């Protein structure tokens, strides 16, 4: 349900939204009826079309309410198709959004964009600093999803969002895959989509962990050292998935690290298999650290894998050239145990309105 508030001016309206808990704590663009209507028009869909209900409050995720959150987040109308794709993915029952919103874990939905939407709905950054400040589309799209989760899903810290600390990705958490620099096929193509399609892949993850690796083209052990560093980082001992042996982890490979693995002959499939093999801890260690969750060791040296299968590790190319890639470990909980969910970005629904962005 949406209600129309009244305020004497823009400042008073903003303060009222803060008071009502409708913001993420930062200033928002006040979603006046005119601004929301323009965003709805840009969607090409009627405002009352519902994409589903969003938990834990079971609010109606209509085009109108999503558009209002997109306005608040600072989105341009061009960004909206990706926002709608992210909301569709979040509402997929496999994503377990209600449980994800309510958990004490710090999980947040990481939005990965593939295909032409990276340019048509952005540009959505994928290179240097893509997960940091400075990129309007990344910041606004990820924030729009979060504001939907707050205002439609009803997530309020300490009441319905019980994350003990949360992480900064709960403000905004969106990037594109750097398909142009990647030696591997794009993520959405590997998932079975046509290269001309655009997709949002949503993965509930922890905050990104930096992974340092110094390459050496003359060292034949370099690929294995890199894979082992990434794998152990995916299985970092404090992460849920290290203890539950499930969920979905993400690796963001920078161009240099991707090149090391490409030169060694890896493709996407053999890469995730190699990562899965290395994303493990000794069962004896896990049993000692967490005897209530990990069964007694069958053998001291037997690995306890941090993910159920190689399919549960998502690899994308991104970031700048240098020493650092990123891994994002997992929550590994909820009825479906935290799978990645992909939704199509419907670019052909969008209605182009010249000059709209400036208003």
């Amino acid at each position, binding site marked *: 349900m949406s209600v129309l508030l009244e305020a004497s001016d823009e400042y008073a309206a903003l303060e009222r939204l803060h008071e009502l808990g409708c913001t993420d704590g930062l200033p928002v663009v006040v979603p006046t009826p005119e601004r929301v209507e323009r965003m709805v028009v840009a969607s090409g869909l009627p405002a009352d079309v519902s994409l589903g209900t969003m*938990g*834990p*409050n*079971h609010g109606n995720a209509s085009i109108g309410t999503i558009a209002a959150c997109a306005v608040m987040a600072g989105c341009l109308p061009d960004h909206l198709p990706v926002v709608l794709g992210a909301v569709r993915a979040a509402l997929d029952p496999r994503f377990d959004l209600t449980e994800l919103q*309510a958990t004490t874990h710090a999980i947040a939905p990481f939005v990965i964009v593939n295909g032409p939407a990276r340019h048509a709905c952005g540009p959505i950054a994928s290179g240097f600093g893509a997960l940091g400040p400075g990129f309007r589309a990344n910041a606004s799209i990820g924030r729009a999803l979060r504001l939907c989760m707050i205002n439609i899903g*009803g997530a*309020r810290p*300490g*009441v*319905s969002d*019980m994350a003990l600390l949360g992480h900064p990705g709960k403000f905004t958490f969106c990037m594109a895959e750097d398909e142009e620099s990647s030696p591997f096929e794009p993520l959405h193509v590997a998932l079975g989509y046509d290269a001309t399609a655009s997709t949002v892949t949503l993965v509930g993850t922890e905050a990104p962990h930096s992974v340092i690796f110094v390459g050496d083209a003359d060292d034949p052990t370099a690929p294995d050292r890199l894979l082992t560093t990434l794998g152990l980082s995916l299985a970092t001992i404090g992460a849920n998935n290290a203890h539950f042996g499930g969920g979905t982890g993400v690796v963001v490979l920078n161009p240099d690290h991707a090149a090391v693995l490409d030169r060694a002959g890896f493709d996407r499939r053999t890469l995730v298999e190699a990562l899965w093999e290395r994303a493990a801890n000794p069962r004896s260690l896990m049993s000692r650290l967490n005897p209530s969750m990990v069964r007694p060791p069958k053998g001291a040296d037997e690995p306890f894998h941090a993910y159920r299968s190689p399919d549960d590790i998502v690899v994308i190319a991104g970031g700048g050239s240098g020493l650092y890639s990123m891994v994002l470990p997992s929550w590994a909980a909820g009825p479906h145990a935290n799978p990645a969910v992909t939704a199509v970005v419907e670019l052909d629904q969008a209605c182009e309105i010249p000059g709209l962005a400036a208003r």
Partner: protein
Amino acid sequence: MPAVALVSSEFWAQGEFIARSVGMPDIPRVRFEHPVAGAGIAVMQRVAAAIRDDIVAALAAPGAAA
């Protein structure tokens, strides 16, 4: 089947929220001290003893089978 939700004090507000959001605002709930996870058997037994009668009463209440 009669049911009662056991909710620790830190999660009482969330329990209220969820009960309302799923349309069951009057679902029986019993409050107990927080935390109990990892608190040890002695604490568990004390907490269980403290809320035992409340659980039985809640299960016997008319709304428990709603």
